[in-house]
């Protein structure tokens, strides 16, 4: 499992991301739908930032902007001090849907990034390493339709990790996993992040997951999303879910999301 990080100690530091006064909106049927409102967020290299907010508030939209797939209506987003002009393989996204290509095997799906960048020859060994890292040994030749939902999600994670990203953008990557796999994948991801140096941006619906994994928790309001709170999670790893410090933060996050009465 640890092969990937040990074989090639990451030399490149994580990416710094600076989001400043970003507004974004969509045109829906002639109407303007504001989605992001004055979002400002400075992310240091190597941070693990969790984004939490009500469904449909604009979290995935923000991730698309950071990935460079869309450009914000106003405001600026910089990666290492340079404006983001478009997608780049140093910023890899794991989308909410695994979106594997049905005509490619797991192996060839994971190879996609290396193939697109012309690195297939020199980096071929990484493919197998990434596949075993997510526990899909023996399924390299399987087609996506032969995988379970959780396995497909793990294949999508391998497809991202094989590129040795400096910023890993995760949009509810564990949302489709059963709770057992989910809990072990949370530890795996944290371990992977600690061994490599990449910066992580994680969207999740699960408060406990955010507190278990991240160094910082950003809570958004409902649409249009604005930042309601930015909380540092000052706890060493490995963490324990029953840690009273974390349960305290959990209570605080629930309050911010308007769920205090369920405590």
């Amino acid at each position, binding site marked *: 499992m640890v092969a990937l990080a040990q074989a090639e100690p990451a030399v490149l530091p994580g990416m710094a991301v600076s989001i400043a006064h970003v507004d974004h909106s969509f045109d829906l049927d002639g109407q303007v739908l504001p989605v992001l409102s004055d979002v400002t967020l400075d992310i240091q290299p190597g941070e693990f930032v969790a984004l939490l907010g009500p469904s449909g508030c604009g979290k995935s939209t923000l991730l698309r902007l950071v990935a460079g797939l869309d450009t914000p209506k106003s405001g600026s987003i910089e990666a290492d001090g340079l404006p983001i002009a478009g*997608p780049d393989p140093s910023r*890899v996204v794991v*989308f909410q849907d695994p*979106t594997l*290509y049905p005509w490619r095997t797991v192996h060839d799906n994971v190879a*996609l*990034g290396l193939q*697109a*960048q012309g690195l297939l020859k020199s980096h071929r060994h990484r493919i197998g390493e990434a596949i075993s890292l997510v526990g899909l040994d023996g399924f390299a030749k399987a*087609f996506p339709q032969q995988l379970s939902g959780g396995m497909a999600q793990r294949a999508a994670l391998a497809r991202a990790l094989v590129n040795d990203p400096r910023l890993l953008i995760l949009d509810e990557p564990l949302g489709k996993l059963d709770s057992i796999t989910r809990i072990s994948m949370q530890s795996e991801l944290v371990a992977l992040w600690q061994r490599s140096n990449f910066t992580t941006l994680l969207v999740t619906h699960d408060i406990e997951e955010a507190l278990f994994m991240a160094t910082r928790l950003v809570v958004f309001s409902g649409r249009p999303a604005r930042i309601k709170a930015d909380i540092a999670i000052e706890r060493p790893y490995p963490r324990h879910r029953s840690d009273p410090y974390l349960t305290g933060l959990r209570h605080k996050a629930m309050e911010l999301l308007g769920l205090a009465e369920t405590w």
Partner: protein
Amino acid sequence: MAWLPVAFFLFPSSWSASVFLIALATGIPVAILTWSGVSSVPSSYYDIARTLGGSQRFLVLRVAIPAALPHVFVGLFMGLTSAFVVLVVAEMMGVKAGLGWYLQWAQGWAAYGNMYAALLVMAVVCSSLVTLLFKVRNHLLSWQKGLVRW
């Protein structure tokens, strides 16, 4: 079929007219289904390739074409069968050669045995072409095994 008189009017020789008709009969379904296949590729497929550093060329060759291939084959099947029908009809109308022409000729002489033989040959030729196309498709789209296929 409505194009038949137009085709014979536009093209002086019946040979070129039937070539035109067949091109029309195959080209249109193939073009329409290829187009609809390419435009039905989910945009998330392109997003994935773009974030992983795929060039424009990569998006076309490695994403759009393989994703649209099942549709292209539907177009090819429709094109093949309608080309065959058009060919036979064109032969009946003008071209002095081929099975359609033979069919007419045999009927004219009341040689019904020969006519049915010609029909049989036609059916065999058509179905073996379709089978060949099926083989090609099954090879190229082997990943669809286990998925719902028409």
